[in-house]
């Protein structure tokens, strides 16, 4: 099946059907091998990459969209989505960036220049699907750190990409990962060499802009032996009416003694109070603690999207490796989130911590779904999970579905979960001291999330708090 088509592709038979004009900046909606060839050609990719994409496409064609998550949405017509769009001219410096895009950044509170200057954060901003600008590259290069778009990495560091891409999230992993593997348009690549501690927070801001454009980022972060990196991903989308599909893939690899900290703030357009217009976010994020004593830590603050389907996971393969998952997921309006993590303990004395805080307001439905698996050889593995849900209002829902599988007598899993509303007594206490109801609720909600926020880098935590206030505005009372 797929093999044959790959062969065909390699032999060039399909080239005859290559009808899309490479000079175009977008492809018409729909997905077929030609579209994939177009994307690959647009990005000047080597043939091996084109072939991998085609292979993924053929796997995806035979897969079915999964429906086990506790989310409901209108069927997605994958042939109605446009899989590529790029700004007119890729600029070579900041000056060439479309002022409108820069303005949009301002509105989102992400003044690129200011951040560059004030915060010392290297920013790899993605608008739609193409890297617009990468900064601080020189500083990073001094340490031998590679921080570039995935397209560049495919061209410039093929050995690293070939070795690690698809090694943590195989292209056949799931429906959305297969789709992403076929059509990913851009994303970030990070490589931290042996023994290097990345001197700054690495950040990328994504923004969804063009109408009817699916977003398919692909991120690959490799922390070589004894290295450390903290990577921040923040997303924001302007108000819009069409449902948008987003199916990103993130792969993290931590070798011996390496540590990766991956923080996300996600505030894409959630749709209106009937659920119309929001973004569908089907993300596959997974980290592999490959070496001994390695550590991967996921922190996420999810306030946006109409539908969220996301389980940042850790495969704890190296002995003594550590996985962490800290999450705040807020659903208001008619948002639905089915999110959590997977901690797969394979190595000895591996440990994992899961702290998940779900907040449901208005008609929001929030589901924690998490898997903790201690393999038969994971002697001394330990997990601690705490999943708390806070309900605000009588029409929302909070659901907790942990899957806890222990196959080792010397392993240990502890899971605790509570579901509560804001206590009348706490609320009264604060109001009696003169704090108005909305502020009081906000105070309690922030307290509820504190454990997770404290995991975020400082400037991110500030942003997360502001975002939480904004999100819950008007949902109280």
């Amino acid at each position, binding site marked *: 099946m797929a093999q044959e088509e790959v062969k065909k592709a390699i032999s060039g038979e399909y080239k005859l059907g290559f009808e899309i004009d490479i000079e175009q900046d977008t492809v018409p909606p729909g997905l077929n091998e030609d579209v994939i060839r177009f994307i690959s050609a647009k990005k000047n990719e080597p043939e091996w990459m084109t072939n991998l994409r085609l292979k993924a496409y053929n796997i995806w064609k035979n897969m079915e969209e999964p429906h*086990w998550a506790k989310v409901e949405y209108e069927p997605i017509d994958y042939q109605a989505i446009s899989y590529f769009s790029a700004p007119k001219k890729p600029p070579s410096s900041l000056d060439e960036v479309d002022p409108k895009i820069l303005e949009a950044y301002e509105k989102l509170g992400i003044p690129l220049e200011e951040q560059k200057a004030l915060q010392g954060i290297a920013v790899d901003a993605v608008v739609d699907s193409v890297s617009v600008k990468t900064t601080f590259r020189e500083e990073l290069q001094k340490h031998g750190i590679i921080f570039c778009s995935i397209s560049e990495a495919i061209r410039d560091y093929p050995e690293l990409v070939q070795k690690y891409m698809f090694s943590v999230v195989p292209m056949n992993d799931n429906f959305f990962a297969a789709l992403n593997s076929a059509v990913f348009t851009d994303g970030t690549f990070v490589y931290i060499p042996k023994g290097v501690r990345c001197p700054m927070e690495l950040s990328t801001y994504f923004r969804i802009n063009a109408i009817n454009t699916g977003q398919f980022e692909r991120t690959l972060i490799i922390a070589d032996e004894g290295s450390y990196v903290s990577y921040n991903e923040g997303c924001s989308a302007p108000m819009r009416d069409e449902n948008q599909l987003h199916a990103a893939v993130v792969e993290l690899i931590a070798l011996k003694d390496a540590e990766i900290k991956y923080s996300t703030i996600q505030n894409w357009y959630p749709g209106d109070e009937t659920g119309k217009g929001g973004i569908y976010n089907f993300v596959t994020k997974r980290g592999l603690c490959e070496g001994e004593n390695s550590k991967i830590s996921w922190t996420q603050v999810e306030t946006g999207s109409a539908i969220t389907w996301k389980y940042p996971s850790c495969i704890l393969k190296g002995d003594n490796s550590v996985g962490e998952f800290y999450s705040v997921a807020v659903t208001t309006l008619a948002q639905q989130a089915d999110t959590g993590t997977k901690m797969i303990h394979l190595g000895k004395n591996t440990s994992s911590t899961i702290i998940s805080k779900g907040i449901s307001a208005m008609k929001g439905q929030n589901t924690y779904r998490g898997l903790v698996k*201690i393999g*038969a050889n994971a*002697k001394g593995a*330990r997990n601690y999970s705490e999943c708390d*849900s806070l*309900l*605000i*209002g*009588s*029409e*929302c*829902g*909070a*659901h*907790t*579905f*942990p*899957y*806890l*599988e*222990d*196959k*080792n*007598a*010397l*392993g*240990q*899993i*502890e*899971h*605790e*979960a*509570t*579901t*509560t*509303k804001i206590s009348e007594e706490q609320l009264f206490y604060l109001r009696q001291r003169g704090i108005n109801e909305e502020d009081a609720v906000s105070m309690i909600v922030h307290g509820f999330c504190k454990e997770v926020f404290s995991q975020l880098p400082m400037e991110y935590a500030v942003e997360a708090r502001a975002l939480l206030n904004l999100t819950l505005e008007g949902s109280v009372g």
Partner: protein
Amino acid sequence: MKLEILNAMSEQEIIEALGTRKEKIEIARKLKELKLPHKKSEKYRYYDIESFLHKEITLPKSGFEAKEHKNALIIENAKVIAIPKQEGVEVTFKEFSDVASNHFDSLYYLSHLLNQKAIVIRISKDSNFEIKHIVSSNEFLSYRIVLFVDSNVKAKVYESFEYCGDNLDRLLYGIDAIIARDASLDFIKNQTLNFSVEPIATNYFKLDSNATCNFLTFDFTSKSGLNIFKAELKEHAHFDATHLIYGTNSAKIGTISEIEHTEKSAKSNQDARAILNEKARGIFDALIRVTKEGIYASAHQNSKAILLNSGAYMASKPQLEIYIDDLEASHGSTTGQLDKTQLFYLRSRGINEVEARKMLILAFANSAISKIEDETIFNRVQIDFEKAYYGDTKLDCIKTCHECEENILKG
């Protein structure tokens, strides 16, 4: 026939294939809607359900040839052979179609379709009796029991099992317990299995307002089996479930359940304990759902498992599905070893490690067994556990109750 072929049939064809009355078409429709489980079905993913459904069977027949008996309903190979002689306990064998309208388990509907008649027990006065299952047949067996507990009545039922033979087949049975307003039912199931029978019990508890039900299950076994139930709670109803399993060999055992709060102010509490030895697998897949109408609910779930060696496996899925904000809900689940500090305490008093471990395991089991109020049944279950765990019982010296102390001191 093989049961799995039912999946390809229309509801009429199911009715015909199983020789069931046409009035059960709604039940057939439910079966069709839910489909018989396969190995990837969410609720059965940790249990080898396919082998249960794959086997060739002849359609089972239940029957009723009851003679009076002092205090037990005895069902031998799906035939009632004795009924309890007790005022206010009436046992009949008759058609029953008023099944749960939204049970999650297709095997529940299947067993209702397989049985033209059910053993219907109406309890109209406070009573206390035993239901004893005897299995010695190597045929596939199926039957259904319906328990009606009338308003204001307190009923206590102890369910026990006796298996004889080596080549026993499967047993698909279950109870529909309809508990009226202000009534209460204590239902204790004690199943110790060391024969090759695979029992699947698929139950339904319906609690009217202010009704109470204590459901305790004890399975100490080397063979697989499941305990499936759905409970529906109306206003101020109170449902308390306790499960203790001790598994050896390569038994796959456990509980698959759904407790639903359908009206306000209901309470539910579920406490599951598992001790797993050798290659045994413990399953706890339990959902508590609080619907929009279930305000002021109190819903708690707890699962604790101890793995005694590598090869043992615990799959725990405590789940909460909550649709309102005014309630109190929590769950917890721990899997792993014995508590290090407790173990050390015992050892620091000179008790060797093996003995100290045994004491702690017994203590772990006792926390569930001690919820049995009736002393005779408590002793029976405790002896069964010790036999299963130690291969022997040391009961006399485990509990130093006041009375036996006095006897010891006198004698």
